């Protein structure tokens, strides 16, 4: 009764998912792969946004959680030949465990120190993937397409190399994570997280232990990030150290900031914008990063709270 937008909110998110479902029959194959990639990376951004947007914690260590999902999935397929479903489950589990461990250590710190400490752990993880290169093949990485059996459902086989399979797998995981994030932000837990972000001391005196809620947010965030990494491995068949590097901690931060922190659709929008801006700019000039930077600056000048954040404050206050 107090939130008249409840139905509208769910309808909007459902519409976005249906739009993505329909797009695959319209767009040319190149863009189909682009969109599949955007969706799986948007899952990563959704996970990142749970922590940054709702608990107010900025991490530079998410590459470790993303790559944990990747390595757990990739290595178990490479060495033990496990099926795609089980490997995905292991990837999600591994990142959940890593996120819990990371949280128990780093959540003693806050603000800038949290940023730095998470980055340190992530860098240590990155260096470990290089150090154990006999297992991980380090920088060079490895390809799993030879070991990966196609998915079987209803007597039919779905090969991961098929663009339509990639697209729809990404869509399913994206849709689940998007709905999960919408529901989380509207749940009692989500309200406490916003309380912690806005005024931690007051939240404590309202009867909540901020640390346990932050840990919960970090575990949820890291698990979603790991699901993204794991799916990315299944879709593109490649695992390498570069996915554990600092760059992959910065990407989700940029996508989230660009799309709008603390908005449910911001991560998708930010990821899509960034991916297409990079794609278009690199087609125009070899110094495309200059163009990307200029575009980002212009967007941030117009939308300091990110695109969805700007839309929310200007036109649609009911957006979650």
């Amino acid at each position, binding site marked *: 009764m107090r*939130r008249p937008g409840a139905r509208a909110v769910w309808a909007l998110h459902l519409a976005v998912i249906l739009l993505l479902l329909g797009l695959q029959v319209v767009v040319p194959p190149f863009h189909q792969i682009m969109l599949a990639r955007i969706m799986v990376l948007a899952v990563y951004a959704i996970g990142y946004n749970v922590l940054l947007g709702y608990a107010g914690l900025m991490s530079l260590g998410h590459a470790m959680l993303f790559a944990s999902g990747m390595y757990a999935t990739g290595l178990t397929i490479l060495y033990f030949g496990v099926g795609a479903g089980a490997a995905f489950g292991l990837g999600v589990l591994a990142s959940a465990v890593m996120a819990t461990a990371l949280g128990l250590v780093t959540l003693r710190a806050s603000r800038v120190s949290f940023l730095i400490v998470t980055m340190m752990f992530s860098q240590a993880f990155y260096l470990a993937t290089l150090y154990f290169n006999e297992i991980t093949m380090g920088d060079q990485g490895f390809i799993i397409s030879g070991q990966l059996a196609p998915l079987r459902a209803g007597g039919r086989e779905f090969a991961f190399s098929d663009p339509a399979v990639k697209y729809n797998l990404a869509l399913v995981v994206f849709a689940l994570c998007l709905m999960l994030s919408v529901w989380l932000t509207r*749940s*009692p837990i989500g309200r406490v997280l916003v309380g912690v972000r*806005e*005024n931690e*001391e*007051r939240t404590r*005196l309202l*009867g909540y232990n901020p640390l346990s809620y932050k840990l919960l947010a970090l575990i949820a965030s890291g698990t979603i990030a790991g699901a993204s990494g794991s799916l990315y491995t299944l879709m593109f068949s490649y695992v390498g150290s570069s996915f554990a590097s600092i760059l992959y901690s910065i990407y989700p931060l940029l996508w989230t900031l660009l799309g709008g922190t603390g908005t449910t659709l911001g991560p998708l929008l930010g990821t899509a914008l960034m991916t297409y801006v990079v794609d278009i700019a690199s087609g125009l000039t070899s110094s495309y990063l200059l163009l990307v930077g200029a575009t980002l600056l212009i967007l941030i000048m117009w939308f300091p709270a990110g695109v969805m954040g700007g839309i929310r404050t200007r036109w649609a206050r009911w957006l979650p």
Partner: protein
Amino acid sequence: MTRLLETTGLSKTFDGLEAVRRVDFRLETGEIRAIIGPNGAGKTTLVSMISGRISPTSGRVLFKGKDVTGLRAWDRVALGIVYTFQVTSIFKNLTVFENVALAAQRRLMTGALSRLTLPQRTLAEHVQAALAQVGLPDAGDRHAGSLPYGHQKLLEVAMALALKPELLILDEPTQGLAPEEIAALSRLIRALSRGVTMLLIEHNMAVVLELATKVTVMDKGDILAEGTPSEVEAHPDVQKVYLGL
């Protein structure tokens, strides 16, 4: 009357400075107790140890006969010890409804499932009841930061009420309010005291004399005197220390 709260030998030392010295403090159910005293007397430090915001250097806090000294602030809230801040502390960027809902849902979150989802209608009823009690029934959709200062104080009280306190600690509730707002808040405190034991730190002597059933005077970390408002007013030490006579 039954004993609601008791502290024994409660002390707090900040960098060698004794803010509160071995204080034995008792509070009965149903009282409106005022703590008065000059700045630096240790009033806020004492109630902060009662609410669990800070932990004592030594001594114990008993609530309804149970030792709560080792409990953190959030667990004491669950027991019914609720503190409102001296400097108004609300969520300025959120709506009034969300401010109170965060408090109200604490009482409704009893099992694992209720952390994940709560019936919106029940929550809204609790929020509305708390807002109506403080006289802000129509403010739900407003941004908390846009409320006038007096209403922000009332919102803070509504948040406290939504927590269903047994002991409500108000730290200088009338500070910064206009005379008519003070009168309204006094009426509210008196009305609420029928269901909730009140512990207030207050500088406004008129409010203390009008509201309090008992007054505790603190000075330099000690309890100097205790009694009915008229007893305390007549106490020679109190006149010397507090009223500057």
